[in-house]
């Protein structure tokens, strides 16, 4: 014994210095692998975010064209606005810049500079104020997707003409307009205020945002009370027997069931058996609630467990009943933890896509829902629809929609972290 403890460590190192080097090298290798693994994960996150930002920021501004439009009373009459030739009126104002363009085909090509929604925008404006007929007004309308891509530098002008959608003449038209100062690129509020559209330059997220809001509201209203009730019962009241064990195992397994299976359940039960409407945020919210409930139960139980027994004993000691202890003292103290868990659960629900696809919340709907029973999309399903669309403009819109979704998720998680740090008590 004494022999060993008396040997100074340096002699071990010197006697086996080759071995020691090898062992230290081994440690270096292990550390290096660890750092490489972490860096790989960080690199992937960086590539993910930067690819989204680099493609998505272009959707946050939109190329518009400003035209002086004479609203010709011969083409548009006040009593039949729906049949007014708004497209011809717009074309006339475009022709001012290009007096030498002739022929039906060429004129149609010229007109395609404007977004398909331009005539409706003008119509709505005249409808709101019929006195504009016969006047010259300044309108500011989006250009169509191909020209938007051109303005954003997504079209390689030097590539062979048959590999791009716009001919040299069309590019020339656009440059003429640009030089005349008719082209502007304001911030694209339509991304948030328009509903979905087949034309990328008009498509927006309003329908998806409202749909997600309704779905999350329903999800919260169902899963929050159910989750808290179940958690309080299991943690504070349930006798330890086979039944409570069964419920416990069941909840843990439910949290790990693939989300698409919840979609199948919703499709078969809510829509198939109960006859609820397809694509409705109500059904989406109910489905998400079933998935969020286990998360909330698990978080609530952890929060209840963290309240020290002394609180319970003190309340019981002054004569409170078991219910009064739980609802008057334990639950309020556990509330910050419960809310944190709930917000994180809702953030997960906001990003959930697969079950919503199965209940039809990927429909093409061009107006925002007025109630949870109307057909709607949600943010993640809108991303899925746009990611599937072939038009080039939708690539940047998809990235932009993802950035919007991530902003919401980060905000929700930030609130959760704030709540935790502000109200969490160390006992």
């Amino acid at each position, binding site marked *: 014994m004494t022999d060993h403890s008396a040997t100074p460590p340096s002699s071990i190192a010197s006697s086996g210095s080759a071995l020691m080097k090898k062992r230290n090298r081994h440690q270096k290798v292990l*550390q290096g692998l660890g750092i490489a693994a972490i860096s790989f994960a960080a690199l992937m996150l960086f*590539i993910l975010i930067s690819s989204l930002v680099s493609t998505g920021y272009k959707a946050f501004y939109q190329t518009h064209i400003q035209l002086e439009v004479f609203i010709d009373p011969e083409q548009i009459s006040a009593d039949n606005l729906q049949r007014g030739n708004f497209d011809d009126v717009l074309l006339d104002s475009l022709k001012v810049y290009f007096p030498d363009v002739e022929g039906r085909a060429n004129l149609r090509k010229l007109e395609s500079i404007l977004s398909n929604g331009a005539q409706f925008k003008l119509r709505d404006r005249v409808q709101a104020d019929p006195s504009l007929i016969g006047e010259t007004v300044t309108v500011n309308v989006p250009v169509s997707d191909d020209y938007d891509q051109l303005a954003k530098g997504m079209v390689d002008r030097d590539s062979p003409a048959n590999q791009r959608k716009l001919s040299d003449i069309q590019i020339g038209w656009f440059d003429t307009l640009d030089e005349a100062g008719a082209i502007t690129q304001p911030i694209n509020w339509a991304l948030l205020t328009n509903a979905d559209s087949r034309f990328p330059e008009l498509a927006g997220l309003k329908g998806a945002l409202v749909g997600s809001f309704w779905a999350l509201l329903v999800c919260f209203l169902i899963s929050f009370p159910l989750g808290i009730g*179940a958690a309080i019962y299991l943690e504070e009241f349930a006798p330890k027997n086979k039944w409570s064990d069964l419920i416990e195992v069941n909840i843990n397994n439910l949290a790990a069931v693939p989300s698409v299976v919840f979609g199948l359940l919703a499709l078969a039960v809510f829509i*198939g058996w109960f006859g609820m409407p397809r694509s409705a945020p109500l059904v989406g919210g109910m489905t998400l609630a079933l998935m969020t409930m286990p998360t909330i139960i698990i978080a609530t139980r952890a929060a209840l467990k963290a309240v020290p027994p002394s609180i319970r004993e003190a309340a019981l000691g002054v004569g409170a009943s078991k219910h009064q202890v739980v609802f008057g003292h334990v639950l309020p103290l556990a509330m910050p933890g419960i809310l944190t868990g709930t917000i994180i659960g809702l953030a997960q629900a906001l*990003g959930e896509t697969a079950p919503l696809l199965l209940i039809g919340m990927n429909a093409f709907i061009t107006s925002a829902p007025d109630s949870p029973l109307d057909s709607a999309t949600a943010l993640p399903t809108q991303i899925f629809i746009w*990611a599937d669309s072939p038009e080039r403009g939708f690539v940047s819109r998809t990235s932009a929609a993802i950035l919007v979704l991530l902003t919401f998720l980060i905000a929700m998680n930030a609130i959760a972290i704030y709540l935790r740090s502000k109200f969490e008590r160390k006992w």
Partner: protein
Amino acid sequence: MTTAAFLCLLVLSIVGYVWNRQAASAIRNGGARLHSLTGFHGFYSLLMIFVPVVVLILLWLVLEGPVIDLVLKSGLSDRLDGLSTGETQLIVAEIKSIAGGSIFGTPEQWKLDAAERYNTLNVRSGQLLLVAVLAMSLALLFFSRRKVAAEFRARHGVERIVSGLMIFCSVVAVFVTIGIIASLMFETFRFFEKVSVAEFLFGTNWEPQIPLREDQVAAEGAFGWLPVMLGTLVITVVALLLAVPIGLMSAIYLNEFAPRRVRSIAKPFLEILAGVPTVVYGFFAILVVAPAIRSFGQGIGLDVSPNTALAAGSVMGIMLIPFISSFADDALSAVPQSLRDGALGLGATRAEMMTNVLFPAAIPGIVGGVLLAVSRAIGETMIVVMAAGLIARMTINPLDSVTTVTVQIVTLLIGDTSFDNPKTLAAFALGMMLFIVTLVINIFALRIVRKYREAYD
């Protein structure tokens, strides 16, 4: 009407609360000693009204649709006699759309009449609901008011109701599981009426088509799930080959070697990676990873299909890195300090302590985490729906395009509503298999994790 019913209920239960509370206060002020606090008398009334009537409203809403449909169909029995279920459904749907105000073409007069009757039935049902809610709430209001007395145990009543509600909440979770199993089994049995069990389980051909015409021969459809399962396995293996080593290495580093500052930065990094919705990963796969793999493959002269298993699998692997890392980190942290101290005390370097002592001791917990990751990879949907293929092939080449169970479920069910052909029912059969496989893995994994925790606690 439903909103009115709810408002009505809300107002009456608040009235009940206030009324009972005041009655109890009056008794107390009269000098009697109350068994329960006045607030409990109020809550007793509130709960006595609110709970049963909410149950009534919900039941009504669930049963209203089917009952009205039944009445509608029985009114049309002379028209619908001898028609198949599909044709009946079509007519009912048409009547409903007429009732909703969207009339296409010129429907027959009897359909217009039926639509009008459908509308009246709906309005009647709403009125009836309102009346029922009012009557029941008022009855309960007076019933609970009459209960107020000095010796009435309102607190016990309230606590019994609340306990009942909480038990109901816990049982809902069980009902969800039962609902999943029941709905999957029901539709799966209907599927097996049309396609034999043996063909589904052992068939090597997956071509879910349905004949469009009676006499169509070519498109009988084949429903053997093996190629679909094989595709799922290929993608899962690719994902794990990426996620397990990287996840484990980062957990080992963070748990033992990382300075406190690195740890405090890297952990949130991984948490962000874990919080990204899967639809975002799917878009990442088609926007960045798949083109990169394709151009790399072409660069070294390999023929890579546009939606390879490799792209979907590796993106899924990225998604699983934080999952495995956090499980492994927990497992390593759960190893008792005495084992670390013992190994270091014997003169082991920290790396030797990790590889020879900590890691073997943590293996059960890590295996549990990896198994949970496997079940997640099998059940993951959006990444593969967006990045993997649609055609089932018996191949294990990760550069080929393969399909997965979840991809097939989603593509079979998108846009199709009728539940009476093998194509849509096949999705439920696949869902059943998915549920069984993931459930078995989950139970196994959770048991390992739990056992392992108990061993060191």
